[in-house]
C-alpha cells in the first residue's frame, strides 16, 4: 500500500519543511489542526455537503467520441473538472482549507495565484464563509489574466500585484509567505498546489483526491473498466495528484503527468523540471526538482499557460517519477493550442490552456493505440479565462 508522506512530510528524499523559524510555529499549528479534523465526521460531512451543493460534485466523466474517432485510436474520456463552480479543480481544495481555517478561528485568508484560478477559488470560498481575502498575483500574470483579476475583485478580495523577481507565480508565493509570517495570528494561508512545506503537499492532494475517487467509481460505469492511462497536466501538480492518488495502487493504470514544454525543451524556455531532469533543490518550503542555474538561482520559466508557469513541482510528483510509478512528459505551447482548438471544434468544450497540455498528449498517443484502449484525461479547468491569450496568439484583437 502506497503510504506517503512519512510523519515529517517526506516523499522519499523530497518534500519536508524548509522554512524560516518564523513559520515553524504556524506550520505546527496547521499540522495539528489538519490531523485533528481530516477524519472528523462533522468536518467531513460539512466538506462533502459543500462539494455537492456549492461546487456541484460529482463532476461527470464524458466520452469524447468524435475527437477519439478523429484521432483514430484509443477512446478518450474526460473528467469534467471544468464544470465545477469557478471553472476548475482548484475549488475542491479551497473549500477544504477554508473550512479548516474556520475551525482554527482564522478570519483572514491569503493566497497566491498564477492563472488566477486558485485566486478566484479562494476569493469565492472567502465570500461564501465571510472571510477577509487577500490574493497575491505577479503583475505579469495580472496582465495575462485580467478577467480573473476582476472576478476576484467582484468576489470581494483584495488583489495585490507582485512586482518582484519574474512577476509570476513563484514571486506571488514568496509575497504570500511574507504576509503569512507577519499576520500569523489571524491569517490562514491557502496554498493552491501540492507544493510548499508539509503538510501542504499532503493536504492539497487529499482535498483534490475526490477527483480520482470519483473516477474509480465512474470509469467502470462509463467504459466498463478502469482506464489504461490517466493523463493530467502538471505545473505544481495539484490536479494531477488529485486524479492520480486513487490509482497509485492499481499497477495496470499508467499515470502520465504532462509538463509545459513552452517554446520547446531545446529552447530552454519551458516549465518542465521533471521531464528535463532538472537538478534537485530547495524552494518554497520543500525539496524537489527545480529549474535553476548552475549557482542554485531559480530561473524564469515560460509557458503559454500561466497556471503551469512554475519552476518547481510538487514533491510527491518528484517521488512518483523517481519510483517509476508515474511518467512525465512535456507538451509545447503550439501542441497545446492545437488540442485546445480541436476540443472546441470536435466536442464543443473550451478547455483551459493548462488542461490542453494533457489533452495534447492524449492526442499524441491515442492514434498509436488500439480502439478498445481507454485514456482518461483530467480536464482540470475551462478555457473562458484564456480567451484573450488564445485570440492574441491567433492575431485577433478582442
Amino acid at each position, binding site marked *: 500500500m502506497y503510504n506517503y508522506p512519512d510523519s515529517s512530510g517526506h516523499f522519499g528524499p523530497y518534500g519536508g519543511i524548509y522554512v524560516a523559524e518564523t513559520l515553524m510555529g504556524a506550520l505546527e499549528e496547521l499540522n495539528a489542526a489538519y490531523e485533528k479534523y481530516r477524519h472528523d465526521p462533522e468536518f467531513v460531512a460539512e466538506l462533502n455537503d459543500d462539494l455537492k451543493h456549492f461546487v456541484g460534485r460529482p463532476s461527470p466523466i464524458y466520452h469524447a467520441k468524435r475527437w477519439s474517432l478523429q484521432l483514430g485510436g484509443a477512446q478518450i474520456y474526460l473528467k469534467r473538472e471544468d464544470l465545477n463552480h469557478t471553472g476548475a479543480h482548484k475549488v475542491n481544495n479551497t473549500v477544504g482549507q477554508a473550512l479548516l481555517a474556520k475551525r482554527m478561528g482564522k478570519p483572514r485568508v491569503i493566497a497566491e495565484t498564477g492563472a488566477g484560478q486558485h485566486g478566484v477559488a479562494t476569493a469565492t470560498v472567502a465570500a461564501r464563509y465571510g472571510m477577509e481575502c487577500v490574493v497575491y498575483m505577479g503583475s505579469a500574470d495580472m496582465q495575462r489574466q485580467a478577467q480573473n483579476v476582476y472576478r476576484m475583485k467582484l468576489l470581494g478580495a483584495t488583489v495585490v500585484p507582485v512586482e518582484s523577481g519574474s512577476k509570476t507565480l513563484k514571486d506571488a508565493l514568496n509575497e504570500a509567505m*511574507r504576509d503569512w509570517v507577519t499576520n500569523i495570528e489571524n491569517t490562514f494561508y491557502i496554498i493552491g498546489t501540492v507544493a510548499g512545506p508539509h503538510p501542504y503537499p499532503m493536504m492539497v492532494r487529499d482535498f483534490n483526491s475526490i477527483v480520482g475517487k470519483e473516477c474509480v467509481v465512474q470509469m467502470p460505469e462509463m467504459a466498463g473498466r478502469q482506464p489504461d492511462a490517466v493523463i493530467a497536466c502538471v505545473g505544481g501538480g495539484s490536479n494531477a495528484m488529485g486524479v492520480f492518488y486513487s490509482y497509485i495502487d492499481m499497477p495496470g493504470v499508467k499515470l502520465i503527468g504532462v509538463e509545459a514544454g513552452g517554446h520547446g525543451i531545446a529552447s530552454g524556455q519551458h516549465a518542465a523540471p521533471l521531464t528535463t531532469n532538472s537538478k534537485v*533543490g530547495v524552494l518554497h518550503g520543500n525539496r524537489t526538482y527545480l529549474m535553476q542555474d548552475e549557482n542554485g538561482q531559480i530561473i524564469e520559466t515560460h509557458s503559454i499557460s500561466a497556471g503551469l508557469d512554475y519552476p518547481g513541482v510538487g514533491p510527491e510528483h518528484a517521488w512518483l517519477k523517481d519510483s517509476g510509478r508515474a511518467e512525465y512528459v512535456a507538451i509545447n505551447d503550439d501542441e497545446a493550442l492545437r488540442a485546445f482548438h480541436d476540443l472546441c471544434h470536435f466536442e464543443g468544450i473550451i478547455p483551459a490552456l493548462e488542461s490542453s497540455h494533457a489533452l495534447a498528449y492524449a492526442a499524441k498517443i491515442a492514434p498509436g493505440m488500439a480502439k478498445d484502449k481507454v485514456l482518461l484525461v483530467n480536464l482540470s479547468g475551462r478555457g473562458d479565462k484564456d480567451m484573450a491569450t488564445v485570440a492574441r496568439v491567433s492575431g485577433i484583437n478582442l
Partner: protein
Amino acid sequence: MSRIQTTFEKLKQRDRKALIPFITAGDPHPASTVALMHALVEVGADIIELGVPFSDPMADGPTIQRASERALKHGVALHDVLDMVAQFRGQDSSTPVVLMGYGNPIEAMGWEHFATRCAQVGVDGVLTVDFPPEESHEAFGHLHRHGIDPIFLLAPTTSDARIAQVAKLARGYVYYVSLKGVTGAGNLDLTAIAGRIPHLRQHISLPIGVGFGIRDAATARAVAQLCDGVVVGSRIVQEIENSKEQNVVANVAKLVKELKAAVDQA
C-alpha cells in the same frame, strides 16, 4: 577557541555587547563589498553577517530582496562570496564572518565542497534561513566537521521542544528574531523581547543575538540591554540603496558608528 567564541569572550570581559551588521555580498557592486566589510570593522562591527544573494528570499522584506536583486544583476554567485571573504581575510584575521542566506545555492555547490571552502577562506558561521533543525542534520554535519558554526534562528513562536533541539545543534551564537514578520519590518516590541530572552537562556548557553526591526541608535541600545549582540540589516542595506555609489562606504560607516556608540552605552 573559534573566532566567534573569542569575540564574545572579549566583549564579556569588557561588559560590552556585540554589534553585528549585515550587508548583502555584491551590493551595490561586487567590487565594493570587501572595502565595505573593512569599513564596518573600522567603526566597530564585532561580527559581520554577509548575505549570500538568492533569487527567492522568502523570509526577507523588500529592502533586502532588492539588495539580492542588485547583486544578482552583477552575477554574484556563492563562489564569488567565498572569494570576497578570502580577500577580506587577507587583511583581517580576527573579525568573524557569518554567511547568511538560503539553502539552494549551497545545495547547488554541494555541502561538503561548501564547508571545505568556508574553512579555507575563513568563514566562521553559516546561517541558512530556510533550513530548520529538522532538515539540517546531514547538511550541518559537513559544517561541524570543518569547524564552521551553524547559526540558527529562534522566533517568538518557537516551542520549547524546538528551542531544545536548536540548543543541541547550534554553535557560535543563536539569532533571536525579535518580531513576527520579515526582515526590515517596523513593529518591534521591546517588552516582549525582555520577557523572552531569560526564557531562552534556560535552554541556550550560547550568546544570543537579536535582530529584525532594529532601525536606529535608540532601538539598538534598548535591545542591546536585553541580549549579547544586536544584528542590524535592513537599515544598513537601505543606507546603501539610498547612497550614491561613491558615498556608500562613508554613509554606511557613519551609520554603523552611531549604532556602535548606542550599543556601547547599553
